[in-house]
């Protein structure tokens, strides 16, 4: 188990390094950072000073190493917009993002998993068909369309909730519902198919044929086994929490990391973009790592399979 965790940790570290390298390479490919960040008509001395300050006159390999070294300490330079350290700007937005994404995650799990289990246990019933129809909508409806529809109904027509901003807790309701609804649909679909798969297995039929009470078959045999694939999808959802909030935060003018990313991209504020890229990558990697460990804990076979052969 320890070996398993260690090998996963190594992989996680590699991924982070990969993302950093990606950002570095893309940044260098995109042109002279001095010209990109300074205005085109900046005086040559200023550009030279900028290059020196950023070590751009060093060999590319040295630049890469110092970039990595800085990146590991969270130093991505200063935002070109307001001159503050990019990482600080990002970190102060994180709580706002978590304030809507965590309740949304709870909604996805709390709504999606029971709905999926119910649908699987009552296959082809009306409830099953309804769940599946809603989940197809969850796959195919872009979040900004759902968001605007909710605004149209609850903010514009009914006037119950505010359409955008972050002044009161009620402002968080529509973003949370938007994020949660689509995720719950996807969650329900996955849970249902995981359940159906498990219910079709011989050991379930054997257990019920042996006369084990059906309720017990479900709770002791079916659910634990269906949980394994479900954990993967939960992990993926946790990993993409921040990324998934980009569009929704923008629609509702919610002051989170996602909205910061959009404005940073629009302004080509590269330091901030890099900082966000790294925060999201670290978050994703941590989520994946946690899922891998949870997987090994849930399914003893994985430990051996991942470590051996």
């Amino acid at each position: 188990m320890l070996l398993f965790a260690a090998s996963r940790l190594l992989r996680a570290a590699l991924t982070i390094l990969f993302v950093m390298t990606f950002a570095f390479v893309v940044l260098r490919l995109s042109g002279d950072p001095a010209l990109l960040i300074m205005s085109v008509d900046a005086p040559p001395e200023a550009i030279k000073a900028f290059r020196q300050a950023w070590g751009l006159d060093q060999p590319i390999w040295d630049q890469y190493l110092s970039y990595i070294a800085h990146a590991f300490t969270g130093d991505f330079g200063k935002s070109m917009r307001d001159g503050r350290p990019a990482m600080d700007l990002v970190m102060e937005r994180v709580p706002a993002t978590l304030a809507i994404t965590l309740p949304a995650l709870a909604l996805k799990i709390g709504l999606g998993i029971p709905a999926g289990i119910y649908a699987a246990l009552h296959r082809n019933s009306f409830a099953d068909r309804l769940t599946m129809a809603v989940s197809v909508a969850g796959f195919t409806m872009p979040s900004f369309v759902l968001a605007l529809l909710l605004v149209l109904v609850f903010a514009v027509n009914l006037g119950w909730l505010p359409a955008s901003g972050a002044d009161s807790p009620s402002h968080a309701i529509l973003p949370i519902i938007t994020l949660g609804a689509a995720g719950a649909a996807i969650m329900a679909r996955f849970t249902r198919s995981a359940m159906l798969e498990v219910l079709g297995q011989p050991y379930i039929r054997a257990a019920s044929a042996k006369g084990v009470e059906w309720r017990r078959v479900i709770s002791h045999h079916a659910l634990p086994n269906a949980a394994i694939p479900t954990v993967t999808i939960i992990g993926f959802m946790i990993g993409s929490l921040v990324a998934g909030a980009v569009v929704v935060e923008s629609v509702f003018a919610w002051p989170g990391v996602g909205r910061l990313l959009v404005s940073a991209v629009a302004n080509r504020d590269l330091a901030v973009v890099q900082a966000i890229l790294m925060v999201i990558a670290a978050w994703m990697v941590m989520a994946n790592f946690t899922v891998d460990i949870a997987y090994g804990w849930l399914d003893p076979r994985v430990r051996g399979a991942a470590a051996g052969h």
Partner: protein
Amino acid sequence: MTLLEATDLRRHYKVRAGRGPFGAKATLRAVDGVSLKIEAGRTLGLVGESGCGKSTTGKLVLGLIAATAGTVRYAGNDMPPTGSAAWRALRPRMQMVYQDPLGALDRRLPVGVQIMEPLAIHGQASPAERRERAAEVMTAVGLQRHQFDRYPHELSGGQRQRVVLARALMTEPDLLVCDEPISALDVSIQAQVVNLLLDLQDRLGIAYLFISHDLRVVRQVSHEVAVMYLGRIVEQGEAESLFAQPTHPYTRALVSAIPVLGPRRERLLLQGDPPNPVDVPSGCAFHTRCPFAVATCRAEAPVLQPTADGRQVACHRADEPALQVAA
């Protein structure tokens, strides 16, 4: 005339024996020093339990996979490196027949197109001539002309194997490597395909390397037989005498396991399974299952030695008359 000669062929695979990314590396010796000769127009049977390296030997002989060591000479010339242009140009001379004909055929193409494919690959003949030749060969292997446009899944197992054979015969090869060609077929069809192979050899003078675990069939088709155990040949010789008087204890066990009609014979039963090929026993690889094993067998690996009746046997105790009686 010697068509193909393989000398001291070895094929080793690196495998991970221990657990985890830092587990010990080990070597799997799938084929470990096999030498054999195939004479033009004759059949060499290759027998042994599954996992003994027979199929790997078949692929090595054709140059389908590169050997770790050893040489293959075809018609007096070295086999070109696998996949090279010279190697590809040599393919029309030697072909392979597979255990699973459905897997060996492209299920999206009519069998006729696939039968013509060797000629298309090697740019031989015009399309019209190819079609004519395909029709000829199909008749020769017992397929009907109208089956030209059929798809593999529309044919029976035996018919598919005939298609694979027809494809192999299109370029008039000198050598066919038949890797368990009948073991996936119904018993009733097996005899038909075996007879077809014998008939084709009579008419076309093709040499076969016939790989099988079925000793009765090997006995029926082979002129010479080689017995493999854990990547090595343990006994080799003329088919009739080898089956009539097997010398190596392993061969004797295999032969005595062939069901026969008539009075019960003394049977030499093998104990246990073949050892893990990653971890081959010291000395004679067979000593762990051999009822006649002595201390020498554990310490020293026997080499193939010619015996009095012109056979080759790798056994320390092959010369002891007492053992011959005991069988």
